[in-house]
């Protein structure tokens, strides 16, 4: 079994730790921090406490806004790449994805430089003749969303491009031959057939955004919390590991649910197409 060493590694250092942290969610926090091994469901109830539920909803809203914006920017870009001359497509795609592989902290830090009150955005605005108060974008929700969209955009471009490039061009030609205009062909043929790619990219961005703690900490200035920051605080500041564990499991639950829905939607879409073909 060639796969055995990797499987053992993943079982020992990924599955086991995740199961352990899950088990911690069912115990009580000790008086001085640490774990008291008394079974309880309080930690999960705690997650639904209005105070924390609000952070969940807030995170979900930020993640959803990020996802929608990323898709709105990525789709035209992926479409333009798929329409570029064939020989140039791999290069365009490579340079679209290259920033994604550079350090996440550095990419986030670059936005501090740009959005700062003394930063380049305000410098540019005053250069254009803007006289009013400098915009203070840094340490706002807008800054967090800009940072998240920026960081995950390359992946969405990649995901959408991969479905666009696999699209049979004859389908579009057929639509045009049957009298549909370019816009109608896009809405009725191209877009529906590329929705699996949009969904894959979207789910990825949503999952990564909702659990993110670096971007809210740096671009939000730690002023408002997302679930990731809450998990971080429970483990490294409040020393309430059981509650932190329950929060982490809630994140995993959201992720699994979304991946499941996405897989269902994708197989449904391909099943439908096969059904039509037969």
């Amino acid at each position, binding site marked *: *079994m*060639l*796969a*055995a*060493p*990797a*499987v053992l*590694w*993943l079982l020992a*250092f*990924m*599955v086991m*730790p*995740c199961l*352990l*942290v899950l088990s*911690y969610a069912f115990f009580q926090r000790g008086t001085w921090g640490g774990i008291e091994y008394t079974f309880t469901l309080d930690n999960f109830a705690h997650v639904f406490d209005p105070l924390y539920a609000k952070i969940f909803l807030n995170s979900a809203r930020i993640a959803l806004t990020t996802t929608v914006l990323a898709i709105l*920017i990525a789709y*035209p870009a992926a*479409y*333009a*790449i798929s*329409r570029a001359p064939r020989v140039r497509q*791999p290069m365009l795609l490579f*340079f*679209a994805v*290259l*920033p994604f*592989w*550079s*350090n*996440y*902290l*550095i*990419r986030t*830090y*670059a*936005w*501090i*430089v*740009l959005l700062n009150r*003394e930063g380049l955005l305000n*410098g540019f605005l005053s250069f254009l003749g803007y006289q009013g108060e400098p915009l203070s974008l840094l340490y706002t929700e807008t800054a967090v969303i800009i940072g998240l969209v*920026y960081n995950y*955009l390359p992946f969405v*471009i990649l995901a959408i491009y991969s479905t666009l490039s696999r699209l049979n061009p004859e389908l579009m030609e057929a639509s045009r031959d049957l009298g549909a205009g370019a816009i109608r062909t896009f809405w009725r043929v191209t877009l529906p057939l590329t929705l699996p790619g949009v969904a894959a990219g979207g789910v990825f961005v949503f999952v*990564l955004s*909702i*659990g993110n*703690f*670096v971007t809210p*900490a*740096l671009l939000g200035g730690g002023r408002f919390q997302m679930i*990731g920051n809450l998990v971080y605080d429970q483990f490294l500041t409040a020393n309430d590991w059981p509650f*932190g564990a329950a929060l*982490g499991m809630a*994140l*995993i639950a959201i*992720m699994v649910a979304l*991946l499941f829905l996405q897989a269902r939607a994708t197989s449904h879409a391909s099943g439908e197409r096969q059904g039509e073909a037969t």
Partner: protein
Amino acid sequence: MSGMAKNRLPGRIVLLVVFGFLYLPIAVLVMLSFNESGLPTSWSGFSTRWYVSLAGNSEILHAAWNTLVVAIFATLISTVLGTLLAIGMETRARKSNGLEALAFAPMVIPDIVLAVALLTFFSRLNVATGLHTIILSHVIFDLAFVCSVVRARLKHFDFSIVEASRDLGASGWTTFWRVTFPVLLPSIIAGALLAFTLSVDEFIIAFFTAGPGRSSITLPMQIYSMIRFGITPEVNALATIVMAVSATALLLSQWLNKEQIQ
């Protein structure tokens, strides 16, 4: 054809805007790293002083050394494990959904969750944390990426040459080293370069598994604390170097992948 050319204009504008958005922040950082004053507001002349002061910063050099140690070991282990996993998965008679999920999971589990799980795990087992625990943790996601790169190559692999080799009397071992391995080598190196880049850049898991104290701090941890505790222009220089290393590794990785497809 002229009609087609006319249609390309909107696409070009879209690409120009999106690529501008993607590269402007990076370009600004690189420019600032060579700015005498180091402040974003004004350009006061070309200077390499921030690079010089980086070279004299023993804390950063120590972090860079740690990062290199972690990345090299994590890459070596994950390349071997990831390649074996890929071959194991592709040569199985039946597709196993459990195996697929296990290999795919490290790419999708939110890193904060994996980080706290590992912290919990090491503390439960009373394992002293340090560079070794970071290496161990980095292997988890590194091997997933190596596996996916090698698997992509195996999808185009003509297994009949393996059969031919066996028919001609070569043992399984000889066939692997003389036939399968040379064909896979470019993608294995490409996967290794990817793992190296990921390991150099990874922050959250390293942050949680490094343990207290500054002895096992890595570059991303150093960058994080530099950003949090006041921006010094040295960060721009450090960021530029780290990005240059990542970009070089990726260009190499891409080039190797391209070679093999042709």
